[in-house]
């Protein structure tokens, strides 16, 4: 990978890229192991499948709604094309409690730092769905004001085409995301510090010291 000045040192997003064994090691290329079963032990495989099943069926979404796709988002959320049938019904308007960042609508240049900050503030495991063509590739707004797709700002897992996509397409995108979550490698509590950040020693309350947090 040539040293590209524009390349942002992006954390290896644990959520949507199968976790490589050494987090933060640039050289470790996240190889998509063809047969997941052989690479890890029996217990780890079952735990990963169980965790994948639990996480895929209870996605809390953060609806980052900006433009016309919001109308179809309402339809997907409301009674007829109910997204609740797939467990993703509960919108959480705080990145702390959300698993899925749904970018619904156009991301223009002024909105890109906002989108990046919200993505960075989301807690792992996190996934991103680009809802609609404008979020996937800028749509037909190829001009000075519009980012040509949200994946120029943050890594995106699932692209839902359509301007705006019909609610069935959205549910199909959600199914694809759920399959991806199911087949990812989920590991137990990984307390690695992020490579480039060493938090100063936090003043820990009595309970904090007690629980050794």
């Amino acid at each position, binding site marked *: 990978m040539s040293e590209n000045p524009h390349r942002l040192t992006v954390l290896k997003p*644990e959520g949507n890229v199968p976790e490589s064994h050494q987090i933060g090691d640039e050289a470790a290329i996240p190889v998509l192991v063809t047969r997941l079963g052989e690479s890890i032990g029996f217990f780890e495989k079952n735990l990963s499948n169980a965790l994948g099943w639990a996480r895929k069926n209870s996605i809390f979404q953060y609806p980052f709604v900006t433009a016309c796709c919001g109308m179809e988002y309402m339809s997907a959320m409301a009674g007829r094309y109910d997204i609740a049938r797939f467990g993703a019904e509960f919108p959480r308007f705080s990145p702390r409690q959300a698993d899925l960042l749904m970018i619904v609508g156009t991301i223009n240049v002024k909105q890109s730092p906002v989108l990046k900050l919200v993505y960075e*503030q989301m807690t792992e495991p996190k996934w991103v769905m680009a809802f609609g063509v404008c979020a996937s590739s800028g749509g037909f707004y190829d001009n000075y004001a519009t980012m040509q797709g949200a994946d120029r700002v943050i890594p995106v897992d699932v692209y839902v085409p359509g301007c705006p996509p019909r609610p069935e397409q959205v549910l199909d995108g959600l199914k694809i995301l759920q399959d991806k979550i199911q087949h990812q490698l989920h590991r137990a509590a990984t307390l690695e510090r992020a490579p480039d*950040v060493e938090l100063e020693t936090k003043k820990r309350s009595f309970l904090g010291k007690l629980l050794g947090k």
Partner: protein
Amino acid sequence: MDYLSPYIPVLVLLLITGVLCLAIGVLATVLGPRRITRIKETSFECGTPSTGAGHQRHSVKFYLVALLFIVFDIESVFIYPWGALLRDLQVEGFGWFAYFEMLSFMATLAIGLLYVWRKGALEFST
């Protein structure tokens, strides 16, 4: 032991909910990944970097409302047991006494309410 027997289902219920909450809490901390980064620690202000201090002096009005709430909430806490036991008291002949007792308790608080009302502490948007 038979005196406590009606409470066994409640005990079982408490046990189950306790175990359930504990299990969820422990599982979440054990299985959930924790990647602490500097940006994640900053406060979320709808996507814009937060400005200004986190802790500022709140208006006194909030404190007043909280105080009033506590006063009248405790009052209602005392009324519930009284209401439950009124019938038994009446059987033992203390009915009227208990009734007037509670009436005087509520009268004093009513006077307090009147004072606060006249003083204008209830209008919030001054």
